[in-house]
């Protein structure tokens, strides 16, 4: 069996195990065992509890599903938008390409921090934690594409000047006909962009939490759990706070390995 298939099965296994942990009878990511805050591993809490006595394993599993799902979706949107804009800028009419790149630059120059704060303060306070999470990843996708699009544009321009493209044009193919060959050729460029976006979005979600824009309590967030590592007092009390970062590394390695030999 090829290594990439093994990685895909392993990732599927991780996701299924996470889903099974969350769906197990009696499992709750929000139930507080107030007599056991920051407890170590026990028969009832296999990975101990967090500062509010909530089962860390269930929360990490739920966070994995939520944050990974959200980050994957946001990364997919970002990469797709970047691919579209970058290719359009390189292969489209010159004026349209110039406008597309100008929009990228304007997006990159905007003071997003203040805009995000305005977005959050404009949201109704009754926005549910699930909606808040969806909005957060949507915002991240909206923020992530311009830098990515710039990189894609550069790659697409190189492609446009490549020898096989010149041959194809010499054979009489128009730019519109060439596009369907362009996107597959850009995959080696888009894939790293997609993969880099995933941890970036997970961590960015955690940082947005500091502005009040993020996954709301009691929903668990992977980014929020990673930020626990910033508190040396917590590290001192329980080693289980490392669990989310270990899982993140494993998931990233698997994500990395899946397309490697494709």
């Amino acid at each position, binding site marked *: 069996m090829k290594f990439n298939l093994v990685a895909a099965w392993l990732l599927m296994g991780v996701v299924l195990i996470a889903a099974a942990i969350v769906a197990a009878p009696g499992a709750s990511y*929000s*139930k*507080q065992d*107030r007599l056991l*805050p920051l407890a170590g591993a026990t028969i009832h809490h296999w990975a101990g509890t967090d*500062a*509010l*006595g909530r089962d860390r394993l269930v929360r990490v599993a739920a966070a994995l599903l939520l944050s990974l799902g959200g980050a994957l979706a946001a990364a997919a949107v970002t990469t797709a938008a970047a691919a579209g804009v970058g290719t359009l800028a390189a292969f489209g009419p010159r004026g349209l390409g110039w406008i597309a790149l100008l929009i990228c630059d304007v997006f990159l120059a905007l003071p997003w921090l203040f805009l995000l*704060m305005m977005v*959050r*303060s404009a949201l109704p*306070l*009754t*926005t*549910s*934690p699930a909606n808040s999470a969806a909005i957060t990843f949507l915002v991240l996708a909206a923020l992530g594409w311009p830098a990515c699009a710039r990189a894609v544009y550069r790659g697409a321009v190189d492609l446009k000047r490549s020898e096989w493209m010149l041959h194809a044009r010499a054979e009489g193919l128009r730019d519109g006909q060439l596009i369907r060959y362009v996107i597959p050729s850009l995959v080696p460029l888009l894939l*790293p962009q997609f*993969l*880099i976006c*995933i*941890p*970036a979005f997970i*961590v960015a979600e*955690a*940082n947005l*939490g*500091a*502005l*009040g824009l993020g996954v*709301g*309590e*009691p929903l668990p967030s992977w980014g929020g759990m*990673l*930020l626990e*590592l*910033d*508190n*040396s*007092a*917590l590290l*001192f*009390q329980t080693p289980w706070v490392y669990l989310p*970062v270990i899982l*993140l*590394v494993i998931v*990233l*390695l698997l994500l*990395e*390995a899946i397309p*490697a030999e494709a």
Partner: protein
Amino acid sequence: MRHSSRLVVAFYMILAVLAGKTSGAQAASRLPGELVWAIGSDPKTFDPAQVDDQWSELVRYVTSGVLVRFNRLTQTVEPQLAESWTLSADGKTVTFKLRPGLRFSDGSGLTSRDAAWSIRHALLPASHAVVAEEFLSPGGVTVETPDLRTVIVHLPGRVIGIGKVFDEIAIEPANRPSQGRVTAGPFVVAEYRRLQYVRLRRNPYYYGRDAAGNSLPYASGIRLDILQDQEMQIRLFLRGEYDLINNLPPDYFELLKQKDSSSVRDLGPSLNTEQMWFNQAPESPLPGWEKSWFQSRAFRVAVSQAIHRDDLARIAYQGHATPAYTFISPANAAWYDRSVNAPHTDLAAARAGLADAGFHLSGNQLEDRENHPVKFSILTNAGNDARLKMATLIQQDLTALGMQINVVTLDFPALIERLMHTQDYEACLLGLANVDPDPNVMMNLWLSSSPNHQWNPSEKVPATPWEAEIDRLMKQQASSLKQAQRKIAMDRVQQIVADEQPFIYLVYPNVLLAVSPRLQGVQPAVLDPRLAWNVERLRLEGGR
């Protein structure tokens, strides 16, 4: 190779965030005999008359010479630049007699003219001094100086705790305000580097001496590093770079205790309170049925009865907080009323109270008389871990009553905008820092006409009879000549607040401090500036 470079980028991004707050370090080396600790941000001003933030106030405290000083440990007013002071029987004339031979830090003489100029300067509207408001009618205050050592202040009316007010007026050279560079206090501002540090040096002409006749202060100077990152502050303290931490987070208290139990102090409850309240303002944009819930005493009392305050103290503060039931902390022995009868945790009583008020359960969801599900949000400020934990604990507590709670964190400007301007919020959880034990300073919180009357700001007339009674009692205590009468009035206010629950008090956070074993002369106080209140007597072991 290609794969590993991708992963390096990903790992780097994670580590960069995790390690992001470890950047920055102390900005200068320690001078011999110098004390060093951190402050959270740049002081807004060094002009002692214009102080209105915590860090400017600290600099003013350690640099300014004042006529009398409010002793943070004994909570009494003591003479300082004045060797004595008297208050007339009608409470309208304060007479100070200055010590002989006083000098400013530049060696120039300090006389009653300097004191009179400083008082007048603080009272001028152009100075925008916060202390002026404490004179009630600053425009009517007159100051005279019959001789070089006597200052007489005439007040238009009696001011409660007038002695303490002079603790906030720094005596500066007449007509030569110096932004703290020429003072009559133990230290002077020597150097300020924005975002790095404030360096203070010893005032060689400070009047103070210890019992053995040695001149004070003991330390050669103080360096106040500007450092917001608490994690970094703890590390620098552990490395011996900092001598004290005045406000230690509960998590780190336990960490430092494990390393050296003698380096941390828990002084018990502070004067500060953490509380939540419901928006009762009639003009708020909330639906009518929500307003009626929040204006219902039964609803507020039921919420209060459902909250497990012991859990809040034990979990959110790791046991370093005390459950709160009234606005005056037990640390404020003179004003705390032990006999206040406040709602304690009692779920059965909470359910019964809600049922009497027309609420009923539909499945697991509480509904009002008109079948509106009881759902609301609790707003708090982002970045405060203890408050977020408390809100999340309360979220679960109220689930037991069938209420659905949304916990929302906002950055402070957005939160203040909602509280003070749009009034578009349902419930809020915040804290109140009390710097003065006298409840008179809480007038702006309790008077119904005040914009800081949070649950219903700026009422034209009191909205309820109990608010009218609080208004009357607060004014009564502010004008009463007898301490016993003031206490009776404040006890009654505490009971009304306990009965009506406009603020649902949660905990009094404990005062947590860290002190270097090398620091000598430490006498920790609950009141600010806590470890630094006797700064002139602090010194490092082996120092001068």
